[in-house]
């Protein structure tokens, strides 16, 4: 009885020797052994299992291989079968198998979420669009539209290109929804556009997850599922949040992300407003000798407006001494929801083009940017505002006034931007 010593370092040679010893291996088997070798040598899990299981071998190896695992005799006709047996038992492969069942389960769930989003969208469109034919086909065409991001090998001017691409897509969707029903008002239009974006995003997530899973399955390349498994909980959190956001968008309720516009919107009440840039409202008020420029997206439509363009125009015509941005921010695990924090820098999410533009304007004109953020989860940000967040509105407003007094002098001008989706929040 000889004990085979499987050491991590010599594992590769052991397998290569086994490949040479077994003359009747066909190409497919050799390929399989190679892939097995790759898995083993990269992960070392096999070696760990062998050491843990205290593997022994006995008998004439030319006929049948007898192995003792945990004291029990296990006959295998080929070494390959034994390798497969141990490999199958490894923690590594167990985890992979778990991923392989987890992925389709999430994939099925995504399919359900897409179907639900589509159904809600089509029902809403049928109710609100003055369209003679069934809009289902047209809507399904929109869902398959994709956006090709500009090439970033030369990053010079990339922000302009991204902004152009994203805005072109938004304009295209808006114009085509409007073409279905020219009499549609801006609020309904913005809601349909948002619902379209939700259904389209869910479809895209499902396509990516499904592609990774099916490729791994087809090529028997299970490690390919691992990165998907790692990001899948985050993707599912986003997908479920988007699904939960549909009723709020349909009924025009304020979202968690709307806390910034809610704070600024109340400050704008009973003051003359003007539309300074696309879907963005401006009001000017005086506060303790300071001139305040209040900016928010034009509510109660579901839009985030274009605060960067608005700031550009304000700065072009006025001398601005400070910018204060109020926005919802993603909370970290362990942080309390609806907690308020103050800081420096542009508090604005999205693809990054607006943030870039605001930072650029501030830098060129030497304007400090202060920010107040209200922490919340992804789900809270895009679903109906929670009581805790709504209750913070007055506190945030008083902090804004405090910040103005702390950082500016009488006679100076401040731009206050309420960043976020302004669904259900007028001004």
């Amino acid at each position: 009885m000889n004990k085979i010593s499987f050491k991590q370092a010599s594992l590769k040679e052991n397998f290569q020797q086994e490949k040479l010893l077994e003359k009747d291996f066909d190409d497919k088997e050799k390929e399989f052994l190679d892939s097995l070798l790759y898995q083993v040598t990269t992960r070392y899990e096999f070696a760990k299992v062998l050491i843990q299981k205290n593997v022994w071998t006995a008998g004439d190896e030319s006929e049948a291989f007898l192995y003792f695992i945990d004291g029990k005799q296990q006959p295998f006709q080929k070494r390959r079968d034994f390798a497969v047996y141990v490999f199958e038992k490894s923690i590594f492969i167990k985890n992979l198998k778990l991923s392989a069942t987890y992925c389709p389960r999430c994939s099925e769930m995504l399919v359900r979420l897409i179907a639900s989003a589509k159904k809600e969208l089509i029902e809403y469109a049928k109710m609100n669009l003055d369209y003679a034919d069934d809009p289902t086909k047209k809507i399904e065409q929109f869902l398959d539209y994709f956006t090709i991001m500009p090439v970033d090998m030369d990053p010079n001017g990339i922000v302009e290109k991204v902004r152009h691409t994203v805005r072109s897509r938004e304009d295209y969707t808006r114009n085509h929804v409007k073409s279905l029903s020219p009499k549609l008002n801006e609020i309904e239009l913005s809601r349909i556009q948002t619902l379209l974006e939700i259904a389209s995003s869910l479809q895209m997530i499902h396509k990516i997850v499904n592609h990774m899973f099916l490729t791994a399955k087809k090529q028997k390349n299970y490690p390919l599922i691992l990165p998907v498994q790692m990001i899948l909980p985050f993707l599912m959190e986003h997908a479920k949040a988007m699904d939960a956001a549909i009723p709020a968008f349909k009924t025009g309720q304020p979202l968690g992300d709307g806390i910034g516009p809610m704070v600024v919107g109340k400050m704008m009440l009973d003051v003359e407003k003007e539309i300074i840039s696309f879907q963005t409202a401006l009001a000017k008020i005086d506060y303790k000798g300071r001139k305040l420029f209040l900016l928010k997206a034009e509510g109660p439509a579901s839009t985030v407006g274009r605060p960067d363009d608005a700031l550009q125009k304000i700065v072009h015509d006025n001398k601005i001494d400070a910018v204060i941005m109020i926005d919802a921010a993603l909370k970290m695990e362990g942080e309390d929801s609806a907690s308020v924090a103050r800081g420096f820098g542009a508090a604005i999410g999205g693809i990054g083009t607006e943030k870039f533009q605001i930072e650029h304007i501030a830098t060129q004109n030497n304007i400090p940017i202060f920010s107040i953020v209200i922490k919340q989860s992804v789900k809270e940000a895009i679903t109906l505002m929670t009581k805790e967040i709504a209750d913070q509105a007055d506190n945030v407003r008083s902090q804004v006034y405090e910040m103005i007094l702390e950082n500016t002098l009488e006679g100076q001008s401040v731009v206050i931007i309420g960043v976020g989706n302004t669904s259900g929040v007028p001004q």
Partner: protein
Amino acid sequence: MIFSKEKTTLAYTIEKCLKCEKLHKRDFSEGDILFAISSKCTFCDGITNIEKIFGEILER
């Protein structure tokens, strides 16, 4: 976490009387938007406007 039980969110509207500043909580109804004039105050003859709209989670 992903496959946890379903929770229902109930939407509420908080109205604030401009005269007596009393708050009144009612179910959200479609068409409610923040800061809009809502209804007559149940305590005085003042007019209320919508102060807050929020959701509360009902756990089953």
